[in-house]
Structures are given as C-alpha cells and as structure tokens.
C-alpha cells in the first residue's frame, strides 16, 4: 500500500527493478514480528521451512538492546539473563508502540516498561529512550524495528545464500493504515520491500486453506466449503477471523481485533501483586527499573506455570524491606484478568455476527498465539464454539507459515503438486469514512468489505450558501469520530451558492489491488451532469506523526463551520 508515498527512495529501489527482470522469481520470505517473539519462514520449493538463528532458535525474542555503541537485536544477541532485557537498555514491545500518539492508552500502559516512555498527552509521538551508560538515549519504534529487521534479513540471507528484498509481514487486525505506513517505513529503512501486509489471522487462514486442499488431494477431505474461526492472541494483540475455505480459496468473512494481549494480562497481575505499582515505579530510576524487572520476570514465570498447575508461589524481594510473597491460584488469576477474557469473548461473538455465521456452522476452531496456552482462553473459545480446538497447527508457527505461503504465491511461484494453488480474499479490518452528521464517523467503505473495493456515498452541505466543505477521513468503528484513526483531510472548494442540503458532494473511496487507498471527492449540483469544480483525488493516509494533535486542532478550529451532513440522494431531475 501507498508504496510510492512512503517507500524511502533508496538505492535498493533501482536494484529491485533489475532483479525482477531475472528469470527465477525471488521468493519473498514471511516474517511474523510478534510483540514478544519473532520468526521467519520461507517456501523451500516443496514446503514451508522456518529459519533458525546461529543459536538454532526458530523463535527469537523481539527486542533491541542499546547497551554498547552498536545496537544488538534478539536475533543475534545472546542475553546473559532475562533481567538484561529489563535493564532499561533494551527496547521491546515496539509493535505496540509503533505509529501511536502519546494520548493512546496503549502508550500509557507502556510506561511501566523498563525503558523510558514519556508522554505529554497532546497527541504527538511519545518520547522513547533506552538507558545507555546511565543516560537516556532517544530512539523511535520505527528505528528499533528497522534494526531488528536488518538482523532478520542478514540471518535469512546467510541461510538462503541470496539477497533478500521482498517480504510478507503479518500485522495485527487493529492496525490503522497510518500504522501500516510506519511498518513499511521500518522495512524500507532495513532495505526490505513489503510485498504484502497480512492481518495475522488471515495468514493462519491461508495455512488452513492449504491444509484443507492437501486433505482433498489425499482424499481425506470432502472438498466442500469449510468455515473456520481463528482466534489469535499473542503478547500484544488479540485478533479473530472467520474464513470460508474451498478449493484453496480462503475467503475472509470477517475480522475483529483489539490491542489486548499477554502484556495486559501480565500488567493486571503485576498490579494485583503491587496495587500502587505505577507510583512505586514512576521515578524510573535505575533502582526502580531493577525492581520492576524482578517483579516482571517473577509474574511472567507465575503466569506460565499457572497454565499447567492450579497454583503458584510468588516470592520477590523488592529491597528496602519490601517483600512480596503470595500464593496465586488459577481462580484468582482469572478473576484479576476477567476484563481481558470478557473482551476476547466479545471479539469472537462480534466476528461471528459480522460474518453472519452461527456457531453451529463453524467446522474448525483454530487457536493460535502465545496466549492460547492459558486454560481460561481455551475454555472461553471452546465454550463459545462448542467444539474442540483444531489440532493441525503449531500455535506459535501458524502465522509465519501462512506469511511464507503468501510470500511464495505473491512471488508467482508455481508448485507442480498444486500446494501453492491458493488465494486469500481479504476484507477491510476497519471501516473507512468521513466526519459527518456532526461529530460522527459515516463509513464509505464499511469494515469487512471485500478488497479490492470501490464505494461512494453522497453528502451535502449543512449551511446555506456553504462554499467549502472540509472532508476529514478516518478509519475505525467508533461512532464518535475522535476515537478513530485520522488518515487525512482536505477541502472541497467552489460549491455553488445553494440552500443547505442541495449540493451533492460525492465521496468515493477506492482500495486497489495493492491495498492502496485513494479518496475521490467533488460536488455536483442537482440536475447538472458535470461537477461544479474539478474532482479531487487524494492518496491516503496523508497524515504524519502528531496526527492526534492535528485531529484535535482541526476539530477545535473548524468544528461546526465546515461540517458535512449526510443527506441521502434526492430525486434527480
């Protein structure tokens, strides 16, 4: 998406052209950058293989440490101990921070991490810094991600013995288009070209489609359409999807996602152990960071143990006579995190109702992601779906395997056995619309619209003789406009004098094959064939960092004066 607009014009751009003219297509690799762990996979010619780092790991921790002059990421770096990652020198959870402004609750929740996250709460990008030689050194999530991606790229190039340029990345469903541009920016910084950005559960859906197709070939499956519900919960995000699969075609019926993840469960549990945790650690001194690290590791460890045992003992010495000793049982843990589990359940129900699928019609329930080990999550999912969990997938590898499949398909690789005879029909994870009817978001392309898509809606003026109309484009599904992601704004000018409600303002949105969004808008007076002024075409998103601030300023400055109101099309004579 929006390649032209956001890819850094680097030397790699031209070499890419040259390479593409060679005879053998370069097979794009699949990368799953998790909030906590990361993996890389590639189509080997007959199947998907996960790549390993020099320490023989398939899953690598997603972090970059700035301890020395040269930053080192979790691909190449060996931690002496987990506490080292929590010393303030390492930045992690960058996927949760990327493309967010400092008024975002997710950014605020990140303030209890060992590195520095500072907010001014005015809608600009947060200040993020790592502790280097006892000094806070600033960085950005894009930079951290780029450093990490470079390590992944070097690792893949060494193993595959060829240069890597094209990648398919998995992304959370809840990411806005602005966040996608930040991911693309990080990739460009790392010299990678994004072939596709796939919502995580749709990558899993593709793997499922391939498995079903194989079953048909081996005469194990019926070949009829199968409905699968995919629930994917990792450390940072929780995503669900409904897919209808037949003949290798995976048709995404609905998507739903949120920023809930293992990190929230961890923080809820930490707060349960130290109710005044935020004030306790707020000074962010070296001492506090160390204590916070101790608590974090102990809590994480306890949560892992609670997946297999009914209760766990937590014993942490925070110094200055402050000790935490507690026996935490599973029931208490579940009560502490009830809000998280409830939200997960509502995501599944929403996904089912959006897809207009009854629970009874679901053939398979696929549970993936790091949180799929938590008994309460399993019980909740199987409870809603009244079905056992599909067993044909490794929960930690499903997304990256799907991404690698997509990488091969999108690179134009053919498989003689038909294993790559696959297609994913994607849908929009979020609605895209404009501010209208006062302070509301009126969708032009509703969520779960099949892509590519092109839709338009007619609007009209709210004041007599209104000459200009401000079009503010948002993405999201909150009714109140400011709760959605701002993508851009522009004015329609030269509206001929008329009573309010008369001019017809056409707003058309187009998502093309490369998932790039364009907005067309203009005004036509009733009874006329031609627009009153030239139409406008805007590639979105046009906003940059600080868009939260920008949205607020827009609302304050213009408010009601240039609002649009949706009035439905009138009879045209």
């Amino acid at each position, binding site marked *: 998406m929006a390649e032209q607009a956001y890819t850094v014009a680097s030397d790699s751009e031209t070499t890419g052209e040259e390479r593409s003219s060679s005879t053998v297509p370069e097979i794009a690799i699949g990368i799953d950058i998790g909030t906590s762990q990361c993996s890389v996979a590639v189509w080997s010619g007959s199947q998907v293989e996960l790549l390993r780092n020099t320490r023989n790991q398939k899953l690598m921790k997603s972090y970059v440490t700035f301890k020395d002059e040269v930053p080192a990421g979790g691909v190449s770096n060996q931690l002496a101990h987990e506490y080292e990652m929590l010393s303030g020198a390492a930045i992690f959870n960058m996927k949760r921070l990327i493309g967010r402004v400092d008024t975002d609750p997710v950014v605020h929740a990140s303030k209890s991490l060992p590195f520095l996250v500072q907010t001014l709460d005015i809608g600009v990008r947060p200040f993020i810094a790592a502790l280097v030689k006892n000094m806070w050194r600033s960085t950005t999530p894009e930079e951290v991600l780029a450093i990490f991606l470079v390590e992944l790229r070097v690792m893949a190039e060494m193993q595959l013995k060829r240069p890597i340029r094209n990648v398919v990345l998995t992304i959370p469903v809840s990411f806005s288009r602005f966040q996608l541009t930040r991911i693309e920016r990080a990739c460009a910084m790392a010299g990678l070209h994004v072939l596709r950005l796939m919502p995580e559960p749709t990558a899993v859906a593709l793997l499922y489609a391939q498995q079903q197709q194989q079953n048909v070939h081996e005469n194990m499956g019926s070949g009829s359409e199968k409905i699968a519900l995919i629930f994917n919960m990792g450390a940072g995000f929780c995503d669900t999807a409904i897919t209808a699969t037949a*003949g290798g075609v995976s048709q995404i019926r609905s998507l739903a996602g949120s920023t809930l993840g293992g990190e929230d469960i961890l923080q809820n549990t930490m707060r349960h152990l130290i109710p005044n945790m935020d004030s306790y650690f707020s000074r962010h001194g070296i001492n506090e960071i160390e204590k916070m690290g101790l608590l974090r590791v102990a809590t994480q460890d306890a949560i892992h143990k609670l997946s297999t045992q009914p209760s766990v003992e937590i014993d942490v010495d925070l110094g200055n006579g402050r000790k935490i000793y507690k026996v935490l049982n599973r029931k208490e843990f579940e009560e502490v995190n009830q809000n998280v589990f409830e939200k997960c359940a509502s995501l599944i129900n929403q996904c089912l109702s959006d897809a207009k699928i009854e629970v009874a019609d679901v053939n398979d329930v696929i549970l993936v992601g790091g949180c799929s080990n938590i008994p309460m999550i399993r019980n909740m999912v199987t409870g809603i779906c009244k079905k056992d969990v599909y067993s044909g997938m490794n929960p930690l590898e499903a997304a990256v395997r799907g991404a690698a499949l997509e990488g091969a398909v999108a690179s134009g690789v053919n498989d003689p056995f038909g294993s790559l005879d696959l297609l994913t029909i994607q849908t929009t994870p979020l609605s895209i619309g404009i501010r209208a009817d006062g302070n509301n978001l009126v969708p032009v392309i509703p969520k779960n619209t099949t892509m590519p898509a092109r839709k338009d809606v007619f609007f009209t003026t709210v004041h007599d003789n209104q000459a200009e109309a401000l079009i503010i484009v948002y993405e999201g599904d909150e009714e109140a406009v400011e709760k959605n992601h701002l993508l851009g704004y522009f004015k329609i000018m030269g509206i001929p004098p008329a009573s309010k409600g008369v001019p017809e303002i056409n707003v058309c949105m187009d998502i093309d094959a490369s998932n790039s969004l364009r907005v067309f808008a203009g005004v036509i007076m009733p009874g006329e064939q031609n627009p009153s002024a030239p139409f406008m075409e805007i590639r979105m998103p046009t906003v940059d960092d600080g868009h939260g601030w920008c949205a607020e300023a827009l609302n304050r400055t213009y408010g009601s004066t240039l609002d649009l109101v949706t009035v439905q099309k009138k009879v045209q004579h």
Partner: protein
Amino acid sequence: MCCNSALTIPPPDPCFSFLPTRPDVISFPVSVSFRVRHVFPHGPSKSIPDDTAQLSGSDPACFYDLLGIPETGTLLEIKQAYKQLARKYHPDVSPPDRVEEYTKKFIRVQEAYKTLSDPRRRALYDRDMAKGIHLAFSARRLFEFDELCTQQMEDKSEWKSRWQSQLSHLKKRSMYKDSGDNMSWGAKMRRQRNESS
C-alpha cells in the same frame, strides 16, 4: 422541483436517515447509473476505473449472467461460481498486465455474489429483475443502504420486523412523492433520458 419536495419530508428517525434514496433507486436506476458515470468526467480514465460506463453500454449483464449461473441456481452453485471467478479475476492471481481490468471485474463479481448469496437481497433483486430493471450496478445504492441498516440492527429478528415496517413505510412515501410530482414513472424515465443524453 421534486428534490425540494423530497426535502420537505419530515426527517426520518436517525436509524432511517438513509431512507429517501430507496424509492428513487428502485424507480430510477438509470439516473443513478448516469450519475455515477459522470462523477469523474475530467479524471484520467486510465487511473480511475469507470466500470459503470461499460455496464450501461455494451455489457448489460445481470448478476446471474455475471456469475454464469441460471436464475434457479442454488446457494452452493453461487458460491462455487464465485470462487471460480475469484480465482480468475482476483488481482493476486490475474496476469500482471491486466490487473486493473480484472480488478474492476472482480469488484462486480463480488457485488453479484454478495447480493445473490444473501437470500433476502436475492429476493429483492429478483423482484427488481421481474419488474424489468436489469442494470446490475444501478441497484448499488440499495445494497449500501441495506448494509447500513444491517449494521445498525444487531438483532436479526428485530431486523426483520423493522424491515417489514420500513417496506410499508417506503411504499407510502413513494406514493406520496409520486402524487406530489404529478408524473408517471414512465414520464420521469423519459425526462431522465432526455436530460442525460
């Protein structure tokens, strides 16, 4: 002017704020089609897919023709036809030099599938077909209206009863409008054609 009389209709409750289109669309499919066609007259035709021009002109295919199934086709046949056509026209699998053209086609196939795979929408579409309104895309606004309503009404049963009450509401409204207009449907159509030609 009829548009002014439409404006004097008391504002419907918020849930139905998209209502007034509906009778218009049903009775004046051509006008919608022309309107859409003239939306980007100055735009570079290469970058802006102008699907409606083809549609109202050389290729007046109905949804059934588009999917290549008979009007009696079952849901299973519709689904199979859709997936087959998706394999052909989806931009991910189409030949690189024909992506733009195939994307347009895919969007139309998608529209056809979306309508025919939903029993209620299919029934409405069949009814319009029977009335002789054949233009596939002219009914577009109708479906968008449907979607908005669907979004607003979570509960399916509630939805149905509202839908029925809406239908009767609509009938009344269109009658009111026709009488206020003093013009027959055919007269409107002729006038429409004259204006747009």
